[in-house]
Structures are given as C-alpha cells and as structure tokens.
C-alpha cells in the first residue's frame, strides 16, 4: 500500500454509505418496498450514533447491510476506507460485530459460555485451527469481560448458555463483542428484551466498553431518552431516508421534549405514551 492511500484510509470515516439502496419484493409482483432509499451517511471513528425512527423506517435493514447479512441493491459501503459492499458477513466479522435484539440469536445455546468466547476470539483472528483453543487465555478474557456486568457470570464459564436468562445472554453477548474489539459495533435494541433493572446495567456497561475501546457504534433504540443521553449523534430515519441528523451543539441544545416533538412532526406518527411521559417529567 502506498503512503498516500494509507493516509487516505486512516483519515477515512469509519463507515461511509454512498447512495445505499435496498428494496424488498412485496406481496404483489410489481409491489416493491424500499427499505433504504439512496442513503448517504458518514460516521467518524469512535463516534456513537443513536438511530431512531418508527417501525419500518429501515433501521434494522441498515444494520443488516452494515453487518453483511443483507447486501445492497445499489450504492456502496466502505468501512475504514475499504469497500466491503460485496463482502459476506463472515469476512466482515473481524471488523464488525452485531448484537441483536433477541438474546437467542447472539449466543450459541448448547455450547458453554467458554466455548462461545473461544469462537468469538477465534473469529477475531478469522482462523479456526485444527487444534484445541488456548483454554487459559479464553477463560481469562471471558472472566475479565464478564466481571464488568456484576452478574456472577464469570464463575459459570463451563455452563451451557442455554441455561441463562435473556438478560444474562445479552450480557454474555456484549462481553463477547468486547473481547472481539471490533472497529464497528452494531446494537439492535440490545436491551429492549430485558427488564428495566437489567437493561440499565447492560446499557451502562455497554457504554463503558464502547468508550474505553473507542468503538464506532451504531445503536438502534426506541428509547429517545437513552438515544439523547448516551450518544454523540442522533440520526432519525423515516421511510428509508435520514430525516434528522443532530450532533455537537445542536444535539446538546435539544431536550427530550424537543426531540419527541420533532419526531412526531417529521415522522407524522404519535410516540408511545411511555416516551411522552418520560419527556414530560
């Protein structure tokens, strides 16, 4: 690689979407649903972006596109300056990690916690060798990552993840993402299936991790208060487009009531009562 192109890569944004378009075939033959409509987004390195919007706005599609489980119809995607538009998800796994909403999809139940971590660590290097993994290294890394959640999981490494509750599985999933240390972390409502207490713990530790390891993060959330409090930048999507993009001073001037008002105005849908109550209080 020449010096110039190396510098171009270093200064490139962590995520760059150019004219990203994704359509799904509808029920009728000619009916087409446009999930992403010519999106152009740049995300700077280490930035934590909250992605909000109503159902069907294209948030989850965008995360799938970034992870590689869905491929773009048109446009391109660059991660750290490298074009990954045609890369399958397993090739992106060294750079991108996704924590899904459903705890069952984040860990492999019937494998033990230790084995899940072993896979996460091997996946970071992208090699699965024909020999036993280094148990001590895996257990040490797992223990250190799990201790932060304070759920006592660090002492249960040999247990099958199938015996864990949803909140514990999400904690394991986040800890696995932490040891993988990806450049880009994608969070798809990763605390929405948890009870408020557990959700708070997992969300707080998540933020510690992404700040400490300066991961570029995109988190989808329906919780506007959380979006406002825990991010550097708020993107609002509606019908496959970005309708609001706030960062820096603009974002810090906005309070929850203001955000809720502009959400209703831009999206044209009422917010759930929960959010309105939170905004009022």
């Amino acid at each position, binding site marked *: 690689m020449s010096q110039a192109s190396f510098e171009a890569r270093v200064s490139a944004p962590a995520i760059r979407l150019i004219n990203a378009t994704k359509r799904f075939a509808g029920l009728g033959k000619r009916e087409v649903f446009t999930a992403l409509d010519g999106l152009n987004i740049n995300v700077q390195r280490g930035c934590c972006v909250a992605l909000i919007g109503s159902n069907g706005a294209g948030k989850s599609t965008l995360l799938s596109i970034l992870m590689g489980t869905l491929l773009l119809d048109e446009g391109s995607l660059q991660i750290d300056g490298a074009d990954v538009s045609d890369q399958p998800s397993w090739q992106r*796994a*060294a750079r991108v990690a996704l924590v899904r909403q459903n705890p069952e999809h984040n860990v492999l139940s019937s494998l033990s916690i230790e084995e899940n971590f072993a896979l996460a660590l*091997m*996946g970071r290097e992208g090699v*699965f060798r*024909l*020999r*036993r*993994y280094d148990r001590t290294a895996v257990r040490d890394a797992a223990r250190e990552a799990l201790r932060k959640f304070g759920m006592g999981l660090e002492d249960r490494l040999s247990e099958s993840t199938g015996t864990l509750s949803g909140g514990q599985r999400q904690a394991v999933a986040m800890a696995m993402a932490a040891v993988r240390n990806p450049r880009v972390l994608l969070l798809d409502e990763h605390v929405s299936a948890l009870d408020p207490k557990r959700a708070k713990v997992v969300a707080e530790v998540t933020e510690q991790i992404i700040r400490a390891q300066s991961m570029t993060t995109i988190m989808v959330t329906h919780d506007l208060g959380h979006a406002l409090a825990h991010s550097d930048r708020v993107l609002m999507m509606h019908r496959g487009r970005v309708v609001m993009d706030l960062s820096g001073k603009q974002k810090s001037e906005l309070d929850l009531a203001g955000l809720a008002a502009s959400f209703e105005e831009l999206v044209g849908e009422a917010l759930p009562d929960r959010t309105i109550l939170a905004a009022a209080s």
Partner: protein
Amino acid sequence: MVTDVLLIGTQIGLLYGPLALGIYLAINVLSLPDLTLEGSFGLGGAAAASSLLMGFDPVSSLLIGMCAGALAGLITALLHVVLQMNVLLAGILMTTAAWSVSIAVMGTGNVSLVRFETLFTWLQALGLGNQQATILMAGGVTLVLALLLVWLLHTGYGLATRATGLNIQTARGMGIRTEKHQIFGLMMANALAAASGALVAQSQGFMDVSIQGGVIVVGLAALTIGTSVIRSDKVAVGIGAVILGVIVYRCIVALSLRLGIPPNSVRLITALLVFAFIAARIHGKGTFALSGFESWRSRRRKHLQFLENDRVSSLL
C-alpha cells in the same frame, strides 16, 4: 441365550458403528438430515470390494471406500450449497444415483471376496474365531474413528462446525464461513458411513449392492435409541451414546430373530422400535397414561405446546 444375543448384537452393531458416527455428525452436529449416508454406505462397500479385487490390502481398500463416500458427500454438499437444494432432496437423489454408481464400480451387482484377505481374516489367522475377530476389528475401527471425531469436534475448527449446525446467522456473524463447514462436515459424515459399508463387505466376504438398502434407518435407530437413553450436550457423551444405540438396536434385532420372528419382519421391527423409543423420549411415562390422570394431563399440555410451536418448512 442372553450372552449369545448380546454377542451377536455387539458383533453386527460395531460393524455399523462408523455409520452411527456419520449420522451423529450430519444430524446432531450439522443439523443436516443427509440421506446420502445410505448411498455412501453402498458406495464405500463397492469401492472397498473393487480395490480388494484389484489387489489392494484391506486397510487401503477401507480408506479407498471412505474416499468414495467423501466424494458422494462432497457432491451432496455442493448440491446444497451451490444449487441451494434442500439437503433431504439432494440426499435422496444422490442415494438413487449411488446405487448405479456402486454397480458400475464393481462392474456387476455382487462380487465374492471369499478368497481375499480382509481385516477380519487377519485376526482369524491369529487364531481368533469369526465372532471374536469381528468384534475386535470392528470395535477397533469404530473406536479409532470415534476418538478422531471427538478430537476434531473439540478443535477450533470443529467448534466452528458445531456452531454452524446450531445457528448459521450467528456463526457467520462470528466470522465462520458456514458453507465450508457444511461441505467438510458432510464429506466426513459420508466417509464414516462408507467405512461401515467397507467393513460390512469385508466381514461378510462378499459385496452386494443391496446392502445399502435401509441402512439409514439403522443409523436413525441408533441415534434415537442412543439419545433417548443418554441425553447430553457433551460431544464425547453423545458419540458414546450413538455407538451404544447401534449395539442396543442390533441386540434387539438379534433377540427378535432368536424368538422366531421371520427375518422379513426385521424392517417392521426396526420401525416399531424407533417409534417406541421416540414415544418414550417425547412423552416419558405419560405414553401409557390413562385419561383423567395427572400424567395424562401433563402429556396433553406438552403435546399442545408442540402444536403451538410447529412450523412449516418447504422441501423445494
């Protein structure tokens, strides 16, 4: 009579040991219901018999048989991965084709190996009886292959293969190239089934293309019996369970033959046996519960739960 039945069951069961390992790998580990195993069993026998006729030694002919099976597994896997065909369908097609290929490999429907050295005549030359030689040799081969499989599934590579069989999306998200593991896994599973075919051909002293008929059911019986008796997430325990399962299955068959049930009914017995073990596993003691009792009610609830969770899946 009991010792007799147990010895015959163990003798024949161990010949089918590698097949049980193949079934375990394909169905339990990879979650791919690969019926090609039946074709690979015949193909392995045919390739091993032909190589014995061509002058190869018994060990090499066993390995050649396994390679033939791996090839069949490779084609099934490619049909699945490249042509996006359902594994069940690809397996049925491959098994149908394997019948003709087996005949083509041997040049005829059956060949006699009576005058050739086999793995088993080696041991018989040391003064062992036919039954002892079979138990020792088939047990040895099964043990070696089982240990190899346990080792493989505990390596980093094997762990990725297990992840592939559990959840493809999650596995890919962890950086695992799942299609590669499906291809390699199916090749291994079919090589194991072929090893069984080669053992059976060498043990009975002739190879007939019809030996493949219905062997998938033997493997399924081994799997249901084994996993009903011993339930565990641990690979080594699961592998031990299917080998035990195939021995138990052959013991039951030997017993029913000894009790005077006509040999033509063996397949019916097999099917009933599988039903019985599945019923016992799913409903436990509730299988025989009478209406109105507590166990009947809990069985009914479990059954309703199954119906609630049932999902459709298309074959084509």
